[in-house]
């Protein structure tokens, strides 16, 4: 027959100093609530920001330049990316690929031929094909061809349509623009050659006028000054443009990057910092409450010392007794933590419903990890409690 704890229970003076007991319950509840809410908000932020970035094939592409300061003005070497810089970027674990935007090293002018009275100096750049968001199969060139396919920045095209009326030029649609051949004149080394450029695509990602790489390599050799062409701007391919490691690396190197795409990431850093702080604070409150509770337990045991000692003298096992005594408080711990989980659930539902207007990327239900943490907290409380009671009872036994 199992030994019953029922006749033993009245021997414990648990009703004493109830203020300290209620304070520790409240402390535990508040601590757990803070911790669980912080974890849930952390997860909410992750989910919200994952949806906010422009992605292709699961990757983000962002352009990076070196910040031009008063000190580095006029010294292009300092503002361009060296091979060492590129190697360092490639070595970072959060960067999947790097491609420099190589510019032309000779004079280029653009005219619309007889269709439009339009002529301007311009620039050409080239980028590895797999970094281009809109890559038609026609974006190819072979030596000897006079036609050059172009990929134009959507932003540049918009700007043209904005200033065109003021310059007496017609506004044109994308389709029309892609139908109009333009004259591209390359000059250098005393040679000049006219090519026919044709826009084959518009890019939302790259703010430039892109030509096939082999054309630029060939033309730089033919018209250029013969020096090595270095990029002032590079594109990086990354799993997450909002990753804090990437932003910290970029900041440490004093590079500047496309702010639009990383603004969310910067906010994320700040907000996650705040919630991490709150989470740590919650954890501290939990620890404080557990300490307060342990004082209360010590008091209960000290006040019930005579009875507990007599039970041990009569032959009660200290292990059995400590398990039973500490088990008395399991329902209390479980109730406090479950209450905190319910309040967190209510807050998450309210946040999703009233603040986020039921956005689909969030859920009204708590994330499983929050429930796991709550369960772990119950285990932690029970474990620390059991250890404490056991050590106190063994101490009593040895006295």
């Amino acid at each position: 027959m199992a030994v019953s704890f029922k006749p033993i229970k009245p021997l414990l003076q648990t009703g004493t100093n109830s203020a300290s007991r209620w304070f520790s319950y409240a402390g535990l509840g508040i601590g757990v609530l803070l911790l669980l809410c912080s974890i849930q908000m952390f997860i909410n932020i992750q989910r919200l920001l994952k949806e906010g970035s422009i992605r292709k094939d699961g990757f983000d592409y962002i352009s990076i330049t070196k910040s031009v300061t008063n000190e580095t003005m006029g010294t292009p070497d300092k503002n361009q990316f060296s091979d060492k810089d590129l190697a360092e970027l490639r070595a970072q674990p959060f960067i999947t690929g790097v491609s420099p935007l190589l510019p032309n090293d000779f004079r280029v002018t653009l005219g619309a031929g007889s269709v439009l009275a339009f002529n301007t100096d311009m620039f050409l750049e080239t980028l590895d094909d797999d970094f281009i968001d809109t890559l038609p199969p026609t974006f190819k060139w072979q030596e000897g061809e006079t036609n050059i396919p172009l990929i134009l920045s959507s932003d540049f095209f918009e700007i043209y349509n904005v200033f065109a009326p003021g310059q007496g030029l017609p506004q044109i649609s994308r389709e029309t623009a892609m139908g109009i051949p333009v004259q591209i004149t390359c000059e250098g080394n005393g040679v000049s050659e006219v090519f026919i450029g044709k826009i084959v695509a518009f890019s939302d990602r790259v703010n430039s006028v892109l030509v096939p790489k082999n054309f630029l390599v060939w033309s730089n050799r033919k018209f250029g000054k013969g020096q090595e062409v270095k990029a002032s701007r590079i594109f990086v391919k990354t799993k997450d443009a909002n990753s804090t490691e990437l932003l910290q690396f970029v900041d440490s190197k004093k590079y500047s990057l496309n702010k639009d795409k990383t603004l969310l990431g910067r906010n994320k850093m700040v907000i996650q910092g705040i919630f991490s702080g709150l989470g740590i604070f919650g954890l501290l409150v939990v620890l404080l409450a557990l300490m307060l509770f342990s004082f209360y337990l010590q008091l209960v045991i000290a006040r019930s010392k005579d009875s507990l000692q007599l039970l041990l003298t009569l032959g009660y096992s200290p292990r059995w007794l400590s398990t039973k005594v500490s088990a008395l408080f399991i329902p209390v711990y479980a109730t406090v933590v479950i209450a905190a989980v319910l309040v967190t659930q209510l807050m998450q539902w309210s946040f999703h419903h009233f603040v986020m207007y039921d956005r689909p990327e969030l859920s009204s239900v708590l994330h499983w990890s929050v429930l796991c943490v709550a369960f772990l907290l119950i285990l932690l409380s029970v474990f620390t409690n059991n250890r404490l009671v056991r050590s106190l009872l063994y101490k009593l036994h040895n006295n």
Partner: protein
Amino acid sequence: MQLAISKLLPTYFEKSRSETSEIWGKDLLWKKGEMIKIVAPSGSGKSSLINFLYGMRKDYEGNIRYDQHDLDKTDAESLASLRKDHISIVFQDLRLFPHQTVQENLEIKRQLNPYHPKEKIAEMAERLGIGKKLPSLARTCSYGEQQRVAIIRALMQPFDFLLLDEPFSHLDNRNSELAMQLMLEETRARQASIVFADLERIEFFPFTSLYHL
């Protein structure tokens, strides 16, 4: 089970005590079924001996063994199970739970390792004349009544050795004899031993060995 005592002496006693004592400093072996009477004047270490034998105190030299268990080296759990299954005791200072009833005091011991059914409590209490006291709080009972409760409590469990430390100090002769009768019956039923320490010889205890402490 047998109880072996070897060169036992409280650390606070002079060595010379072992010359005059029949227990201190001697090697003794008590087997199950023996009736041991220890007669000792006040201050000769009676309660110390009983406390040592029950594993309550360790301020002694020498050693005490219950079969293979050396009391000095027995851990808390093994000691608890020795007390639960093999050694019972009636303390001189009674040691009841004052805020529990007599019935509760007895039940707390009985449930630990029930040798008797619950009904036996009332039967024994009736026999020792405290049947009406079962529902009363222990602290409201007289010393004599409390002593009888302590005696019945010791009989609620199985044991090989029953340790008695002046168990009749608050009882008159008639009640002492009744209590002794009960203890003898219970001990014989278990084929166990009694180690009975008292100030003087008591006629109604049929000892097999007598020692002067």
